[in-house]
Each structure stands twice: as C-alpha cells, then as structure tokens.
C-alpha cells in the first residue's frame, strides 16, 4: 500500500506535456469548485471562528468579547449535560452497532441461501432519512409505552434506549456492508489451513478472520463514533431532546436526552436570542472534538496499514 503510493506520488502523476494545457484551463477546472467551496465552507468556517469571540444578534452587528463565550459555554449546564449524554450514547452505540453488524456480516458470508435478500432487507433503513426514521420510531415506541401511561418524551431511559434501537436499525445494515466487503477479501485458504490444523470455528474466527478484517473494524468503529457524536436529525425527530428538567438563570433549559448537535442548534435558534455567540463557541468546541476523533482515526488506520 505504502509502496504503491510512493510510485504514484510526485512526478509520475503529471507530465510537463499535459501540465501546461491543463493549467491554461484553470478557470474552467478548478475555479468553479473552489468558488463554491469558499462560499459553502471557507468563509463560513472563518466567520464562525471569529463570531465565537463576539456577542451578536445579527452577523452585521457584533461586539468583540474575547473568550467570554467559551467561559459561558463551559459553565453552561445544558451543554455539559449534552456532552456527557452524547459521549455515553456514542460509546454504547459503537459497541452494539459493531457487534451486531459484524455478527450479521459473518453469518451472511457463510454461504447461506438467500443471503442477498437478507442483505437487501438489513440495509434498507439507511435510505430513509433521519427525520422520517425518528417519526416512524416515535409512533412505535409511543404505541408500546402509552399502554403503561408514559411516553418516549417522559423518561430519560426510554429516550436513550429508544434512540439506540433506532440507530441500530439504521446503522447495522450500513456497517454490515463494510464488514462483508472486509470478510470477502480474507483468502479462504487461510481459514481452510486453520481448519486442517485442527482449529475450531471459534478459534479460526478469533485468530484468523478478525486479525484480517482489522482495517474494516477500525473504519466502522470510527464511522459509528463520529456518527454518534454528530447525531442530530434522529434526536430532533424522535423526542426533540426530551423534557426540560432544569431551568437555568440565563434563560436556557437542560433537556434530558438532548445531544450536542441539538444543543448547539437550540443556542442559535432557540428562545434565548442573546446566546448566539455562546452557541458559536459551543460549535467550535464541538468541531475540535470531532476533528480530534478523526485525527486519531487517521493515525489508527495508517499504523494498521504499515503492519500489513
């Protein structure tokens, strides 16, 4: 993998012959994408960074307040609650999604009749968007819970496990596809050799199959982890973040099952219009958090590649 990259790097991907004629087309090839990128990403990114140090109601009228917003963000009880709640949710969902996805993928690669039909069915929820998923499940959960005179909105544990079930329903199929691709790339001879040497099915799974699909496992772990942290639509649609259980002095509320992304959204578009600067500071903290996870992921996948 590394070697191949070296060969394709540097001079071999461009030749002077081609370079000049392409370079003349700078405005056709690169400028449209880059211009949109400036509008859709670069400008809002830096503007957002700047706004996190300001107090503002509209973007045209801002006052610089230094790190005041960050101080407020870290002492905001709703934000801290959302952070720990999101972290707990992410950890539980990573473990459950990956265990189930790997199990299903493993069973489906055992030359089972109708494996394609099963695969089709398991993947299907991925095509339905988060908002619709949320309302489908809130109908089902409320159908069950209304018999016990409660609802998904009322109790934290129902909100938590309800969202976990929803995410399992959606993401097990997605991760399963990645695991199937990984499992299919393991040479069959390896398992056969292990079988001939007297390994049981379980032993060959632990010592032969899993080490060979480590890269898929890393990818799926981090994909589910970042998905868990960034979750918004499902959280909003399933129960809107749950019940407020604590009212803050500054006018905010702490909601039982509100996650980070939804908390940031409420700071911007909620009732308290003076909280926008704090909202942007929260967004920057959120960005640093997600970026850190992605960098660790990159490190992890790189080191795996070197080993192989």
């Amino acid at each position: 993998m590394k070697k191949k990259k070296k060969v394709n790097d540097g001079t071999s991907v461009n030749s002077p012959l081609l370079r000049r004629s392409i370079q003349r087309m700078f405005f056709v090839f690169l400028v449209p994408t880059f211009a949109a990128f400036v509008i859709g990403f670069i400008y809002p990114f830096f503007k957002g960074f700047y706004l996190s140090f300001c107090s503002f109601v509209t973007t045209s009228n801002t006052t610089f307040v230094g790190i005041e917003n960050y101080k407020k963000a870290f002492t905001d009880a709703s934000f801290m609650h959302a952070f720990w709640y999101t972290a707990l949710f992410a950890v539980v969902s990573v473990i459950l999604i990956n265990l189930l996805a790997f199990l299903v993928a493993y069973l489906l690669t055992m030359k089972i009749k109708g494996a394609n039909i099963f695969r089709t069915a398991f993947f299907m929820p991925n095509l339905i968007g988060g908002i619709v998923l949320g309302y489908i499940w809130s109908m089902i959960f409320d159908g069950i819970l209304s018999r016990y005179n409660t609802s998904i909105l009322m109790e934290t544990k129902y909100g938590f496990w309800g969202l976990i079930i929803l995410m399992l329903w959606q993401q097990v199929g997605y991760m399963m596809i990645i695991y199937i691709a990984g499992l299919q790339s393991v040479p069959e001879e390896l398992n056969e050799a292990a079988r001939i040497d007297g390994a049981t099915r379980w032993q060959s799974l632990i010592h032969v199959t899993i080490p060979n699909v480590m890269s898929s496992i890393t990818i799926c772990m981090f994909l589910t982890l970042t998905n868990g942290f960034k979750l918004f639509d499902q959280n909003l649609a399933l129960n809107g973040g749950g019940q407020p259980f604590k009212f803050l002095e500054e006018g905010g509320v702490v909601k039982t099952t509100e996650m980070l992304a939804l908390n940031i959204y409420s700071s911007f578009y909620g009732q308290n219009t003076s909280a926008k600067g704090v909202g942007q500071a929260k967004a920057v903290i959120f960005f640093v958090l997600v970026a850190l996870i992605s960098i660790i992921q990159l490190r992890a996948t790189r080191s795996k590649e070197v080993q192989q």
Partner: protein
Amino acid sequence: MNSAKVRLNIITAILTVVTIIHISPIVMVLMNSFKANTFVKTATFAIPRGNMFVGWDNYIKGFTFGNYPIVKAIGYSATITILSTALILLCTSMAAWYIVRVNSAVCKIVYYLFVFSMVVPFQMVMYPLAKTADSLHLSTPFTIPIIYLGFGAGMATFMFTGFIKTLPLEIEEAAAIDGCGALRTFFLIILPMLKPTLISVGILEIMWIWNDYLLPYLVLDINEYRTIPIHIQYLQGSYGTVDLGATMALIVLSIIPVIIFYLTCQKYIIKGVAAGAVKG
C-alpha cells in the same frame, strides 16, 4: 456434511425471523396509514379493520396536509438532489483532475483544505453559512446546489483524486501528442474512465442530499420551498394536535421513491457504500 447443513438451516431460520422483525417498522407505518387518527396511538399494532379502517382517507388528506401538497415537496427534493449531485460530480471530478495533473503548490494547498473540510461538522459553519446563503440570494432549490457543492466538495474531490492517481498517464499523453486539448481529453478520455467512482460518489451524494434536513431548512425559504424531511418535521414540530394517520400516509408516500431507487440501483448502492468507507 449433514450437521453442517443443519447448522446452515438453523442460521437461515434465525436470520429470516430477524429480517421479518427488521422490516416490521415499515409494515407498521403502512398499516397505520390506513387507520383513523385516534387509533394510531391507542391501537398501534392492531390490523386496521372495522371502525379503525379509513381506506384511502389518510392518503387523500396527506396529499394536501398542512396546506402544502406533498407532490411539491417530493418535486423539490428530487430537483435539489439531482441538480446538486450532477453539479458535484461534474465540478469536483474536473477539480480533482486539475489537482492531480498540475500538482502545483496551489493545488496542494487546495487539496489539503478539501481534506480538512471533511472533518468539520456542519454545526461549526451552520449559522454563518445560512447567513451567507441568504445574503447571496441562494435560497431557492435551483441555487442551493452551489451550497451543496461547496460543503460537499471535500469528500467528492478526495475520492476522485484517489482514483485519478491510479490512472495511467500514457493515454492522456498520447491524446495530447495527437493535439487533443485539455477539455476534450477530460470529457472524452478521463470522464469515461472515472465511471465507477462517479457512480460511488453519486450514490453517496444522493443518499446524503435526499435525506438532508438541516442545511435546506436553514437555507431555503420554507414557506415556499419544502423538501420531504422539512415538510414532515414542519407538520410534526408545529404545536397543536397532529393527525398521525395522515402523517403515516405521508411517510409512506415519501418512502416509495426511495424504495424504488433502492431496488433498481441496489448493486451500485452497496458498492458505493463499501468504496466510500475504504476511501473516507
């Protein structure tokens, strides 16, 4: 031999049961879309019959639910998805080819900016982006593709550059010697070779944009233009009693295009997901 066969049969049986449970939520939605509103909550799991059963009433209501025809929402969703995906595929593949073949300092900087954008969550740029889009008058379904191109450029360009790096240089050099210009080389030689990546990226973009809620909600003028997720959230999120039966009919109507798309393009969707995971 026999015990192995028995084992496979048991696994198949278990998987069949799990699969039936797995698709039951969709069956549930379908069932409840034929029930009168009051029974959706009290008798969610009952088969609609007798006084519960309302025939096509919910669908007729669902069509114009909330004074906004669902057909319009489906139309805007489709317009935005198709235009944005087409724009992203065309522009980012061109940009990727330029970046790989010119490979200058500027290209490298642009490339690393694209890669960087992939780790930035939407909430970071959400508020300034909505304001920028507003001040540039990009709040219609026909201009929002520019925002999608900008925010989605990172991943698409990254996937295209990865593939273009593996293409042999000799073909393009031969074309250049024969007097083929950059534009013709790209459209006649490069683009056909990019087909597998075009499909993978296209699938990932379609799945993202069709289901996206927050970006269009903040950018579009939602009294005028609503996508399906916006429409459903708007109806459910607003206060007052909501007709659950009609909502279920609405959900069924909005899922139908997705299921048709899935069943016809299943092979590509699964390939696209696997390819996207390995690259991303």
